């Protein structure tokens, strides 16, 4: 979905973070799915990066 395709129609949005922003999108009539988010468990950032690469 390139930037050119992004501008071609009103966007469908995935919201990660502040839930008020998802509500604001709903109020504008946009299609939105909200991702429940909380900080990852307290692990070493270097280990996390490695895991990201492996998984």
């Amino acid at each position, binding site marked *: *979905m*390139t*930037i*050119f*395709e*992004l*501008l*071609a*129609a*009103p*966007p*469908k*949005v*995935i*919201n*990660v*973070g*502040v*839930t*008020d*922003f*998802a*509500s*604001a*999108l*709903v*109020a*504008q009539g*946009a*299609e*939105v*799915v*909200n*991702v*429940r*988010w*909380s*900080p*990852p468990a*307290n692990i070493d950032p270097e280990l*996390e990066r490695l895991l*990201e690469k492996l998984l």
Partner: protein
Amino acid sequence: MNALASACAIRRSRYVDSVLLMHLSKRLSQEPGVADAFLIMATEANRSRAADAGYPRSEIDIAGPDDLLACVRAVSDEAASNALQKLDSLLDEQRRQPTTTVGNIDDALVALPGARIVSISVPGEFAAAEASRALERGLNVFLFSSNVALDDEIGLKREASRKGLIVMGPDCGTSIISGVGLGFANGVRRGPIGVVGASGTGIQAITTLVHRMGSGISHAIGVGSRDLSDAIGGISTLAALDSLDADDTTEAIVLVAKSTGEKSRAEVKQRARSMSKPVLECYLSPGGPTLEGTAAEAVRISGRSPLELELPLGERNSTESNRRTRSRKRRYIRGLFAGGTFCHEAQAILLDKGIEARSNAPLLPHLEIADPGRSEGHTLLDMGSEEYTLGRPHPMIDARARVERLIQEGRDPETAMLLIDVVLGYGAAADPAGDLTDALQQVQHESGGEIAVVVSVCGTELDPQGLERQAKTLQDAGALVCPTSSAAVDAALELAGVAL
């Protein structure tokens, strides 16, 4: 204060975002007998804030960084305990969101096939990982989060560029894609003008002014405050310009930024020359254009005549009589801005007139304010900066920091004039003007009417808060409401009687 009872409650491993924390604090503080409510994620820094606010360490320090901590002060132990008993029902209420909620981006893609973009507003240290996940799945990114490492930003933008995607941000306040606003965005009609902006309130100002002047916006693409630095090299700006050049609905393009690197600016200029559509560059600096002038010019180059703006509202005569009766000590303008771009523009206008104002976000290094907690001479503050928002949402959502500062400035015998902005739109507070009126009236009352208040409102009649309704609220609180940010600076200078 000593007569009040305090109580705290902990909810283990319960994450609540900063905006919800603010809403919940407000709701708890409205419970019977409650004087003050304080909700935080119990990181070490936030626990120190709670201790500074007078809550007992013994109750605070048993919470950890993944825990939600709620503290209230009330007229009795019973009132404090009753208020905290409401906490769970308020949390449940907030959990019932109007949107489909899933556990991760992959599930979101199943729930919403054809999703084109991910809007990310998690704390900065976690934002790059989320953005990277989105790019891996071929999605564009709107990255509202700030405090993302520069190297991460460069890496994300290069990756996006390789895939023909864009990363709007980090620190991107606003975008409007085909009429849908992301982050803080205003209700504006669609039209022929495309906007690319390295400044969130810059985009909000241009899009609302273009709308009020009778034209409209095809798309407004935020690129993040650092994109035009030479370290980033305008990666997202160039992608946004190319996409608007290829977009059939765009006829003219505005590029708005507060500051740029020399190399990046030269590269953007070169790209703009090679494009098929006119590009109007608005770099806000002394001698440069204003936001209002840029919006009017954009409307003109798209082949239309800009409409006359209908505001100002307000009792100009009363503010002029206020000038005549004001104590001689009251000589200085104190600007308290929610929008960083309005603070930047106001400083540029004053410098153009030979007036140096101190700021926490100064245009010239020697004008940096020594103590962000105390104004000196003419002072223009970006209240959206970290030093004022630590642990709190942005002042466009949460007025508390600005209200406290308004009252502080009102008690300074040297304050002649308060210059403020009120920013409307999706994502902003439900009633940003109403949040300030008690403080504005208190300032005018305590100063015996000697301090005048000049306001500009960034918004349109299509915003949920309504431009006219908000302007009227401010007018009723005794403010002079000006049609644009630059007109407000001019009015403040005139009414403060600043010798030019």
